[in-house]
């Protein structure tokens, strides 16, 4: 009873925490990228200020009901996805769904955004969505290959089970036995996070920020929140699968570490063309993932 | 006189070869005409040749050495007629077959007339408007 009550509390509290931390991630990202590029950069809390500003902004253009509902759906979708990954040993709702459930919950958010963008009717936005979906077709395969190898290795698709098996120190983390899968997943993660070289959907110089082109004011604010949660969720999957979870603090540290790697790559890489990006995912990361998967299948 | 005929038709003079052989020969000649000749009338004649061959064969299977026609007189009726006369059935059959042959030939010729009328030729290789 007590445990359940505690869990419910965490379920309510965790999203707020994640939003704030996620916004800090974004701020940190801008700062770190700036430092790498030898700029000063905005303060680390800049994104929080941005969101507040966006929500208080008046009269953003509205193109219809779905246009409004899209960002809401994106935000809510990411919120519900968040509850299905354990964060810092807190199971939240993840007893009620395994990795595959999560994978499909993760789709709700982009879908909502895509529908909103669609109603916006700006061709640049739609091109961005088309690119994003193409990219998704690319990295999803890699992601799934890695996840299958983890499931095969552990014999379970439940996050909590997988985290439990990795308990007992750094040596038990699955990143060691499943190194190839982890590598492949990290590459996929780069695409999921939309960091360079995989930021074609939003590429400002080509499609004017792509999906975001029509959104302003609180729409953009919602999307910012969605993005903030998304970073935590996506890195969190990696943390839970390969880095053994951990307490709340260490969990976020690991999560940020994963994000930091992505940032470093982002800061130094140019952008692929979308076709190249897609082909890239289906060649090297997929091959690495498959080799890892075969190894798992053979050794198991 | 009848002795002479009997000798002539005895196995020593004419074997089965002459009847069977000539019926096969007629058949083959007819078949050859049908297959090689281009003229419709000649083909029709070939058909009658084939028929004649078959008819000859039919009539010759009824023959018995030295027996008379199957028309009974008083003396024949006394004994067992079947010992004295040839088999009458092939004769009846041939009668029918001949009439049928005549009918077929008549049909063939009448169609040939129409063909000649419409196509202006009797060459079978040129009469193929209906094909495929």
């Amino acid at each position: 009873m007590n445990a359940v009550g505690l869990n419910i509390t965490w379920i309510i509290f965790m999203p707020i925490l994640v939003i704030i931390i996620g916004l800090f991630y974004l701020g940190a990202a801008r700062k770190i990228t700036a430092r790498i590029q030898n700029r000063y950069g905005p303060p680390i809390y800049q994104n929080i200020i941005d969101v507040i500003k966006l929500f208080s902004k008046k009269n953003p253009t509205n193109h219809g009901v779905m246009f409004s509902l899209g960002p809401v759906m994106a935000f809510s979708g990411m919120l519900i996805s968040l509850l299905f990954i354990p964060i810092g040993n807190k199971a939240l709702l993840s007893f009620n769904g395994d990795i595959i459930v999560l994978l499909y919950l993760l789709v709700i958010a982009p879908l909502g955004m895509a529908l909103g963008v669609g109603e916006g009717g700006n061709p640049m936005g739609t091109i961005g969505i088309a690119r994003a979906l193409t990219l998704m077709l690319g990295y999803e395969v890699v992601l799934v290959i890695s996840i299958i190898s983890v499931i095969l290795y552990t014999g379970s698709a439940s996050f909590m089970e997988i985290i439990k098996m990795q308990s007992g120190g750094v040596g038990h983390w699955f990143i060691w036995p499943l190194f190839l899968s982890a590598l492949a997943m990290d590459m996929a993660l780069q695409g999921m996070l939309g960091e360079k070289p995989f930021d074609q959907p939003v590429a400002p110089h080509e499609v004017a920020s792509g999906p975001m082109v029509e959104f302003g004011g609180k729409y953009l604010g919602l999307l910012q929140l969605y993005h903030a949660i998304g970073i935590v969720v996506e890195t969190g999957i990696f943390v839970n699968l390969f880095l053994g979870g951990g307490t709340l603090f260490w969990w976020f540290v690991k999560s940020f570490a994963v994000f930091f790697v992505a940032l470093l790559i982002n800061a130094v890489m140019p952008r692929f063309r979308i076709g190249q990006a897609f082909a890239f995912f289906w060649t090297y990361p997929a091959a690495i993932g498959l080799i890892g998967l075969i190894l798992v299948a053979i050794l198991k | 006189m009848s002795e002479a005929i009997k000798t002539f038709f005895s196995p020593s003079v004419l074997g089965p070869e002459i009847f069977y052989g000539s019926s096969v020969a007629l058949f083959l000649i007819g078949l050859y005409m049908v297959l090689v000749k281009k003229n419709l009338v000649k083909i029709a004649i070939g058909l009658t040749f084939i028929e004649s061959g078959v008819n000859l064969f039919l009539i010759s299977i009824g023959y018995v050495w030295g027996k008379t026609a199957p028309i009974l007189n008083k003396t024949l009726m006394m004994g067992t007629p079947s010992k004295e006369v040839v088999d009458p059935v092939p004769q009846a059959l041939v009668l029918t077959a001949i009439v049928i042959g005549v009918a077929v030939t008549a049909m063939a010729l009448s169609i040939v007339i129409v063909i000649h009328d419409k196509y202006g030729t009797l060459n079978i290789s040129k009469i193929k408007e209906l094909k495929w």
Partner: protein
Amino acid sequence: MMKLLYFIGCFSGGALLAFLLGSFSPLLKKFITFLAVILGAVLFATMGTSTYQLSLLFGNQVIFGIDTLTQFMVWMTLGIAFIVSLVLWSHSELSPTFFALFLLNVLGTVLIFMSRDIVSFFFSWELMSWTAFGMILSDGWEKKRSAAVKYFMWSAAGAYMVLIGFSILFAATSAIRFENIVMSVGRVSHGWLITAIAFLVAGFGVKAAMMPFHVWAPDAYSESPHPFTGFFSGILSKTGVYGIFIAFFYLAARLEAVPMLRVHGTSIFGYIMVWIGAITAFGASLIAVHQEYGKKLLAWSSVSQLGYIIFAFGIADSLGMTGALSHALAHALFKALLFTILAGVIMRTGTDHMASLGGLIKRMPLSFIFAVVGGLALAGIPMTIGFTSKWIIYEAGINGGYIFPTTLIFAASTAAFLYYYRFVYSIFLGPLHEEHQNVKEVPATYWISYILLAIPIFYFGLYPGKLVGIISTILQSYNLPALTTYTATSVTTPLGTFNGMVVGLGFGAALIVGLIVYFIGGRVRKAASQTDKYLAGEVVTNEFELHYSVDFYRFLERKLSWLLKISAQKFYEFIGELIRFVADINRKMFFCGNGQAYLYYMTIVLTILILSIWRIKP
């Protein structure tokens, strides 16, 4: 006995009446069809689970039986048939023949599920096939001809493969009833049994649009009369699935014992089917991504979804069977929904060319909402039946260790997301075209049917256990491995758990939170016009084509061109050319027109016979 006859008479009599009276009044044909379907459903409800015998051929008893699986499939069929008959109220332009054939088609389909012996099965099978052909043809659109011919040819080929399979079984066991065949199947030699199963699976696979035999499906689905397409793709393909189930259930069990035929812990047929299913799902969805016409897109999507079912059947353990049957229902529901919506769109706008549509959300909001619902199910978003079944299938694939096919299946699912977005965007979103300014929302029969279809989609999404429960009962009645770890709202597999209700409530709560956050923000301004957009300073007017819908995934297509080039269609076209060549030679030789040549042939035959007979008897 009598009830079955009433049931058959209800449909066939309805067909006859609709055909005879339909030409007098369009109302009558619609009414009769509607009534016949409802009456049929009522009759079926009273029939319960029972067995009926009919004396049909040479006084032989053919058997029709109803068990749980039959009930499942028949209710599915009758349900979609009801939807179609509802939608047909708005389609007076279809000929009475169409209505009559539709009823016969439903009858044939239902009888397939009921039949318990070879004769009645094949009878129903062929009935279902040709009536569908008639329907494709019945509203006389000239373009449909090649699609109809293609469909008919393939379904005949499939039916004949089934026939060969059945007849081999009959020859080996001398039994026509399935139960007797099962009893004597032990006497059948392995070679014959394998041949029979191969023919059966291939034959049923044609109907289920299995990959090398799928070429008819996209054309036939997209060219069939629009209100009927949902039934066509949703239900008729399931007869193939059902057939595969029957073949496996009755016969493959015998092959399990042969070690040579076991690969990867299952029979080799299962293994082959897993791969075929995965390739079908993957390949078809990649092709669907590049379609320009809505019906074609959904048609390829159907092929792809059927690949999932075949994949799951191939796995053939408790999870696989459950997944296959539940996806059969799921596909029937959401594909019927999507095709019906598209039928409504076509009815209102007259086209399914996606680039010519767009922005219809403004005029047909209800259709849009249900298109999203159908799309959620198609893409397998949790809370819909599509996810329930797909999830079980994935778990089955991973649990069974079919790692590569499962990967393909996942990729196919992602591709489904691609083409689904394209579908919804191109038709409902984006700018509204000038000529569609005055388009009206679909009539009530349509949106009632949308609602009726959406209810089970969400119900079984939120209560996945209910669906699994139904299917487990079926599987247990067939003594097959069944999934037992489920409650009303959740299902547990060896790998993990899924609780539909929690996800649903959670998402509901999240949505409320999102809306609260949304309303916290400031007021919004409605866009002044369609051109009121950020377009990098360009001044645009209504003449500008702002609808990004042609070659939607061009970059993808360019990268995958090598894969898309592999086409079964081309192979079949080559075969067709070859047959035509042989046919011409044959025709020009044996019917050359020269009378003398015919005599030659006669003589040659005579000679050949003579020579051959001399060889036989010296």
